[in-house]
């Protein structure tokens, strides 16, 4: 037993003195905690309705609405041009003149003798065409009247302008002439005057008739004489007139309407690929308060895309007469609206929009009182206006076949991106829209140079369309985008993420149109796995 105890004691002593801490020699700790988990986490959800998906639709010129069927519809509404009365119609300057002889010979009468001469005149207003004015309510302008006598006698004259009234009284000008002062001239502003040209000198209904009565008295003294050919000459003119209203017939006045629709932002988000709308409509809206009808001739409607390709509108809408109604006299002051619809049945509008136009040039000629339209008594007042607007309605009843869209967004790599060793982004989609999409992700540098790209993947599948034309259940898909450590390092200097999205509607390869209803949604659940290495000492 003693030997055992001795051995134990020695052994214990040996163990106690044996000290080997080589493991810790020259070792440094320095708060070095290696933490390199891989965290899988849901980042959140991205839910889009159809109109939100095409977010660029929501610009100033376009709206997104639903048609009666509930199909998402792009609506462009633009007021293109207004034509006012003064711009549409100008009354030409008028100038009339004549002379009125005395008709008698008197030589050295014994006593001073007064001869009275009187005459009524009927002048026709000068027109450019077949205008027939019954009356003009002048807003401004000048009426000039001049008289010259070749009598060697004193003359007192009175000119009554029956066709020009103010305050229900005709314009009257009078004066005296002598042999030494044988001319007279006077100007009267036409403000407030009404020109009545609807009766001839006999009082019968007529148009464009300007009536004047001239009367003068010749004073023949005993030492003077006049001959029957001595006369008084006169001229009258209406110049620079503007009107408050004109009644009658304005004949066929042409109105050139030319404009461009340039804000087709909807198509700007697309690149290559095909898009075909089944039932687009373009409504030209004419709001006319002129008191006459208009004939509209779509002379040229041409769409041009960003590549410079152009296509002109063709079809019945081009060749047919398109009448725009005007209010009748009893409805003066009101506006009549006429819509002229361009659609796929009267034009090749589908082809035009399939071009993905960036701009559309529209040249329209509007003509008053067109042939083939029943006669209508005309009037114009200074409130008369012809507004031309356009409403473009494009229901999302369409086919997309590999239509490529781009979306860029700023990107700022996180400061601690070096800690990331692998990143996997998962997009789990639930899609009620009959439209699938493939996405390629590009990371671009400051000069839009490509730093790294993630290959295209199908991110969401198009839902199947049922017999009722709607999708009944969503298509589900999952796409994983993986960035390995080298990839992550390569995007450290990226400033932009460019998403290249290729859209294809369900059964597009069979030419099927699909309707995108307003209650369809595309939902993404965005999640990811992030592998990071974090050392407590910051290394």
């Amino acid at each position: 037993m003693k030997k055992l105890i001795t051995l134990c004691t020695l052994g214990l002593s040996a163990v106690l003195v044996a000290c080997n801490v080589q493991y810790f020699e020259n070792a440094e700790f320095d708060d070095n905690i290696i933490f390199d988990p891989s965290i899988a986490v849901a980042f959140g959800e991205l839910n889009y309705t159809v109109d939100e998906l095409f977010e660029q639709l929501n610009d100033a010129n376009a709206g997104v609405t639903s048609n009666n069927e509930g199909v998402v519809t792009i609506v462009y509404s633009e007021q293109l041009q207004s034509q006012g009365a003064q711009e549409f119609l100008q009354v030409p300057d008028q100038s009339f003149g004549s002379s009125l002889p005395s008709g008698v010979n008197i030589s050295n009468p014994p006593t001073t003798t007064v001869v009275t001469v009187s005459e009524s005149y009927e002048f026709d207003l000068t027109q450019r065409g077949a205008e027939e004015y019954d009356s003009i309510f002048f807003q401004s302008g000048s009426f000039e009247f001049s008289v010259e006598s070749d009598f060697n006698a004193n003359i007192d004259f009175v000119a009554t302008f029956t066709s020009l009234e103010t305050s229900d009284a005709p314009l009257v000008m009078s004066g005296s002439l002598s042999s030494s002062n044988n001319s007279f001239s006077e100007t009267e502003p036409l403000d407030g005057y009404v020109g009545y040209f609807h009766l001839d000198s006999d009082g019968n209904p007529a148009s464009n008739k300007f009536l004047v009565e001239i009367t003068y008295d010749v004073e023949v003294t005993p030492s003077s004489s006049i001959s029957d050919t001595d006369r008084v000459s006169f001229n009258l003119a209406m110049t620079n007139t503007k009107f408050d209203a004109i009644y009658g017939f304005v004949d066929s006045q042409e109105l050139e309407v030319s404009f461009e629709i340039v804000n087709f932002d909807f198509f700007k988000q697309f690149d290559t690929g095909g898009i075909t709308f089944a039932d687009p409509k373009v409504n030209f809206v004419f709001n006319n308060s002129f008191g006459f009808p208009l004939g509209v001739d779509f002379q040229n409607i041409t769409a041009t895309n960003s590549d410079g390709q152009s296509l002109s509108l063709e079809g019945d809408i081009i060749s047919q007469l398109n009448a725009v109604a005007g209010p009748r006299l009893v409805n003066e002051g009101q506006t009549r609206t006429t819509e002229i619809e361009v659609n796929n049945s009267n034009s090749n509008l589908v082809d035009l929009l399939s071009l993905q136009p960036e701009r559309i040039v529209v040249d329209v000629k509007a003509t008053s009182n067109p042939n083939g339209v029943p006669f209508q008594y005309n009037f114009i007042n200074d409130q008369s206006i012809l507004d031309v607007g356009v409403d473009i309605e494009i229901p999302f009843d369409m086919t997309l076949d590999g239509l490529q869209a781009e979306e860029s967004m700023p990107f700022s790599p996180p400061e601690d991106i070096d800690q990331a060793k692998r990143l996997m982004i998962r997009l789990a989609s639930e899609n009620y829209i009959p439209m699938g999409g493939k996405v390629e992700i590009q990371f671009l540098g400051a000069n839009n140079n490509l730093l790294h790209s993630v290959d295209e993947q199908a991110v969401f599948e198009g839902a199947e369309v049922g017999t009722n034309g709607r999708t009944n259940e969503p298509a589900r898909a999952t796409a994983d985008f993986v960035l390995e450590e080298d990839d992550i390092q390569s995007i450290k200097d990226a400033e932009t993420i460019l998403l290249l999205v290729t859209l294809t509607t369900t059964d597009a390869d069979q030419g099927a149109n699909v309707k995108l209803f307003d209650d369809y949604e595309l939902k993404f659940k965005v999640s990811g796995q992030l592998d990071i290495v974090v050392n407590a000492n910051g290394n």
Partner: protein
Amino acid sequence: METKMRKHILLILAIVVSFSVSAQGFLSFYQLRDIVPQTANFQPAFIPNNSFTLGLPTNVGVTVQGDVKLEELLYKAPGQNDLSINFDVLNGVALERNNINVQVDLNALHLGFKTKKGGFHIFSNVRANVDFVYNKDLIEFLANGNSNSIGATLDFTGSTVRIDAFHEVGFGYARKFLNEKLVVGGRIKLVTGMYHASIEEDAGLRLTTDANDYSWQVQVQNGTVNTAGFGFFGDSDDEGSDMSSYMVSNGNRTVAFDIGAKYKPLHWLEVEAAVNDIGKINWTDEVRNYNTEDTDFTFTGIDLRNQDETADAIQDSLTNKFTSNETQNEFSTTMARRMYLSTSVYLTPNDRFSLLYFKRDALSHMKANYALAYNHKFDKFVVGVLGSMRGENDFNFGANLGTNIGPVQLYLAMDNVLVTNKPEQYSKADFRFGLNLMFGYKKWFKKPDVVDLDEL
């Protein structure tokens, strides 16, 4: 007959020791319970062999142990000098439930007196314990995140921590009965808590990651962390004196008890039992409760549209799922009760084999510990060895030594003496040493009936 019984008992001891155990410290020191007065901290039925004992404040015990080796906790890659805490390494060796335990005992004062029937002592200790339990899922999450658990649940429930620091002052008394076959001892002590932190019992946290969208289902229950005393470790510089005053005396008090007994029905057989730290501390001063309401939610992320600071928004959204607050409500904690059960067989009056059962209840579900020890008593000292198994393959070899050289007593006990040689290969370090002044031995030694001729 007696010899046969001894063999049977030894066989049983060997079988028991071969079981998986999770030792928690001071097993070797306990074997010095014949001569070292500080063993009364574990076995109150301690009666010294001398009239008066003065324990100096040099009696210190430290236990550091876990279910990982030091080289696994402080990992050094081959060919490198940097030490690191590498969760991948820890995960590779993790058990379903892993313990890390640190205990520090300082015996500030021990005054012992022996009487005819027993003895009594006055003592003062400062003690600190840290118990940390992490389960496999927690370390898996720290090492690999949740990516390996997609479509599954990571259940962190059971992972917990408890930190206690307190000092105790008390009085102990032990007395012999039944013709000295039975010794019964007890101690009463005033315990003052200084620092505490613990997670509410049955606190639970579960994280289920959806297989498709990686959404998180988070379940929290009983999410409360109670602390006391840690508010002093804030930024304020002028609270040092307040903390000193607080540490000396505060309202976090209780009266606790230690009890123990030894019974020696046969001259070669002795059984012992001791239960220490029976009491409950009411924490009333410097209390903070950090509460998270029970919740069960699924985090699917945020609405990512129109978000500028996505990362912050996700973090805020997740944080807002929790309803947390801080309170200052009193709470109580049961002291980490320690229980020793021992059966000893004396081959000779000086040679003892002991089978030791030890259980400490700092946290629920803590395993009991076993050790098989042999001690030999010499005239002036006691020496012993001890073996224990932890886990399935981790064998700890301990030793102890106590001396009585004149009035000076020195002692040293280690549960794992091999730790000095390549300590990185071990998961346990335990030692206790001290210095006592012992007086009045002769009065209590019986004169030998037989004269030792060798001495003569």
